C-alpha cells in the first residue's frame, strides 16, 4: 500500500495544482517586488510589473536568477524578510566557487521538512521505522533536512551525521535501522565495509535508502541495492531552494516527483533561455513560490534533465524529473567535448569495476588529457596479464564510445582512492587555464 505524507496535495489533479501555483506565484511576485530591491530592479529592467503576473502562464515573463546573482547579492542582498524573522542559514559545500548562503524563516523550515517527510514516506517510511541519517549535519542541508522530515513522519531518528564508518554500521545493526539517508557514494562505501565485515544483505536490517546530493547512475543504484539488500531512492534538491526534498523518488523508482505546490519547474534552452515543451531535455529552472526568506524566482539550476507528466503507478500526480545528467558545474569540457562524471561511472560499473574511481583532467602540450583511475578488485584480477590488458582496452573503447573522446585508464591498488563521507571527490582538474 502506497503511503503519503500529504496525500491530498501529493495526489491533487493537475488543475488543482495549477490553481495553487498561480495563487502562490502572484503573491510571491508581489512579496519579492516589495521586499527584494535586487530582483525588483531586474523586473524593472525587463519591464515587468507584479500586476503582469496573473497566473502560472505568465511565469515566462519574469527575469531569471542565477548563481552569479547569488554571488553579487551575497550575503543579504536577496533576503525577502527582515533578518530578525530568519531563524537559520544553510550553505553549499562550496565545491564550485563561492559559497551560497540561504536563509530560512520558521515557515520555510517547516515546508522544507514537509517535503523531506514526503520523500521518506514515498520510500516506504512510517513512524515504525528507524531512520539513520548519515548525511553531514551543520551548514550542509542534507542532515538537517532529512532529520526534520524524519521527525515529521515520526520515525525514530538517528542523527549520526557522517564519519566513523564502523560506528555507523554498529548503530545500524544494534538499533535495527531500516532507512539509511546519505550520499550515494557514502552508501556504496558503507556497503563495501559491511561486506568486508562479513555482513550479507540478510544480516543488514535496512530496507530502504534515500540517497542524494550528488549525481549517481542507475548502475550504482543496482549495485548498492544488491550489496545491502535495500531499495535505493534518489532525492533531489538545492540549498538555494531549501535543500534535499525539492523532488524525490517513489516506489516506481522512475523519476523524481517535484513538490510542485512549493516549487514550479520549467525546462529551458540554456542558450536561448526559451521555455521548452514537456519532454524536452534542457536546463531545469525553479520558482520557489512558498519561501519567505530566500524567495528564488526562476532560479537556473544548471541541471540538465527532462520533465514528464505521465501517470505514475504510485498515485502521485506531481511532475517527475529524470535523473539529471549532472550539474553543469560538474560537467567537464575536455577537448571541447562535454563530459559528465556520471557517464564515466556508468561505463565503469557496466565493465565490472566498482564505484571507486577518480577522474583526473590535465593539460599537456596544450591538449587536454583525461585519466580515469579505478581501483582493481578481486573480481577483475587474474594472473593473466593479457586478460587484464584486454579488459582495460575494452574499457577504454567503451569510454570512447560513451564520451566521444579518448580516455586513459589507470588501474590503482585497492583502497588507494580516499573514501568520502559526504560528497565524493570524483574530479581532479589540474588544468591551469
Amino acid at each position, binding site marked *: 500500500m502506497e503511503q503519503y505524507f500529504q496525500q491530498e496535495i501529493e495526489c491533487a489533479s493537475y488543475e488543482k495544482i495549477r490553481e495553487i501555483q498561480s495563487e502562490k506565484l502572484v503573491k510571491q511576485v508581489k512579496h519579492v517586488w516589495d521586499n527584494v530591491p535586487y530582483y525588483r530592479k531586474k523586473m524593472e529592467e525587463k519591464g515587468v510589473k507584479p500586476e503582469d503576473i496573473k497566473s502560472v502562464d505568465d511565469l515566462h515573463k519574469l527575469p531569471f536568477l542565477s548563481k552569479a546573482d547569488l554571488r553579487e547579492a551575497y550575503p543579504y542582498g536577496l533576503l525577502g524578510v527582515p533578518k530578525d524573522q530568519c531563524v537559520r542559514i544553510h550553505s553549499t559545500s562550496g565545491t564550485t566557487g563561492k559559497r551560497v548562503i540561504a536563509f530560512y524563516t520558521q515557515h520555510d523550515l517547516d515546508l522544507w521538512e514537509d517535503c523531506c517527510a514526503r520523500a521518506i514516506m514515498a520510500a516506504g517510511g512510517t513512524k515504525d521505522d528507524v531512520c539513520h541519517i548519515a548525511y553531514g549535519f551543520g551548514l550542509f542541508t542534507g542532515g538537517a533536512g532529512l532529520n526534520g522530515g524524519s521527525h515529521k513522519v515520526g520515525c525514530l531518528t538517528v542523527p549520526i551525521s557522517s564519519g566513523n564508518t564502523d560506528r555507523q554500521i554498529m548503530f545500524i545493526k544494534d538499533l535495527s535501522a531500516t532507512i539509511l539517508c546519505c550520499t550515494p557514494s557514502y552508501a556504496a562505501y558503507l556497503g563495501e565495509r559491511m561486506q568486508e565485515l562479513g555482513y550479507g544483505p540478510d544480516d543488514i536490517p535496512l530496507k530502504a535508502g534515500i540517497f542524494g546530493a550528488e549525481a549517481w547512475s542507475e548502475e550504482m543504484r543496482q549495485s548498492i541495492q544488491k550489496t545491502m539488500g535495500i531499495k535505493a531512492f534518489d532525492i533531489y534538491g538545492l540549498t538555494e531552494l531549501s535543500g534535499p526534498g525539492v523532488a524525490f523518488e517513489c516506489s516506481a523508482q522512475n523519476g523524481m516527483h517535484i513538490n510542485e505546490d512549493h516549487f514550479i519547474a520549467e525546462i529551458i534552452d540554456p542558450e536561448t533561455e526559451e521555455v521548452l515543451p514537456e519532454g524536452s531535455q534542457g536546463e531545469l529552472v525553479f520558482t520557489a513560490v512558498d519561501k519567505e526568506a530566500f524567495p528564488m524566482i526562476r532560479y537556473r539550476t544548471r541541471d540538465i534533465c527532462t520533465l514528464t507528466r505521465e501517470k505514475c503507478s504510485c498515485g502521485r500526480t506531481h511532475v517527475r524529473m529524470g535523473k539529471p545528467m549532472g550539474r553543469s558545474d560538474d560537467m567537464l569540457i575536455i577537448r571541447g567535448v562535454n563530459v559528465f562524471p556520471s557517464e564515466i561511472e556508468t561505463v565503469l560499473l557496466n565493465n565490472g569495476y566498482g564505484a571507486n574511481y577518480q577522474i583526473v583532467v590535465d593539460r599537456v602540450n596544450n591538449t587536454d588529457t583525461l585519466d580515469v583511475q579505478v581501483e*582493481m*578488485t*578481486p573480481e577483475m*584480477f*587474474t*594472473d*593473466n*596479464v593479457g586478460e*587484464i*590488458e584486454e579488459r*582495460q582496452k575494452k574499457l577504454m573503447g567503451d569510454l570512447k564510445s560513451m564520451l566521444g573522446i579518448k580516455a586513459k*585508464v*589507470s*588501474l*590503482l*591498488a*585497492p*583502497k*588507494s582512492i580516499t573514501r568520502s563521507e559526504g560528497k565524493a571527490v570524483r574530479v581532479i582538474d589540474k588544468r591551469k587555464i
Partner: protein
Amino acid sequence: MSVQQISVFLENKPGTLKKMTGVLAAHSIDLRATSLAETKDFGIARLIVDDALSAINTLKENDFVASLTPVLAIEISDEAGGLDKLLDKFTDESVNIEYMYAFSGSKTANNAYMIFRVADTKAAEARLTSAGVKILTQEEIAAI
C-alpha cells in the same frame, strides 16, 4: 601435484613492491621464488612461498588484490643443458608454456628449480609425470 603460486596486483608507482614485501616480512613469510610481470600501467608479482594460505590471507588483509594460481615446480640439475633437457619433454608431450621463472636451491646442492605456468595444469602434470619428469609438491617446495 601442482604448487600454489600467489599472484599479486601491483599499481605502477614507486614503493608498491616494497609495501608488499614489507607486509610479507612482518608476517615472517619466507619467499622461495619471485617473478615480476610488468606492463606499462601495472605489474603482477608472482610468488612461491613457504606457506601460501597464510601469505594470501595476509596480503588480502592489507588491501592487496591477490589470487592463487596453480603452477608446476620442477627440479633440474644446475649445469649447462639442464633446462634444455627438461624442455625436450615439454615438446614431446606438447605442453605449452605461458611463462616460467627459475630459482636456485641451496648453495651446496647442485640443482635449480623451474616454475612453469601452463594452460591446462592437470593434463600437463599427467603427461609430464608419465614421461618421467618429477613434479614437486607444495610440501617439497616448503622444505627447500
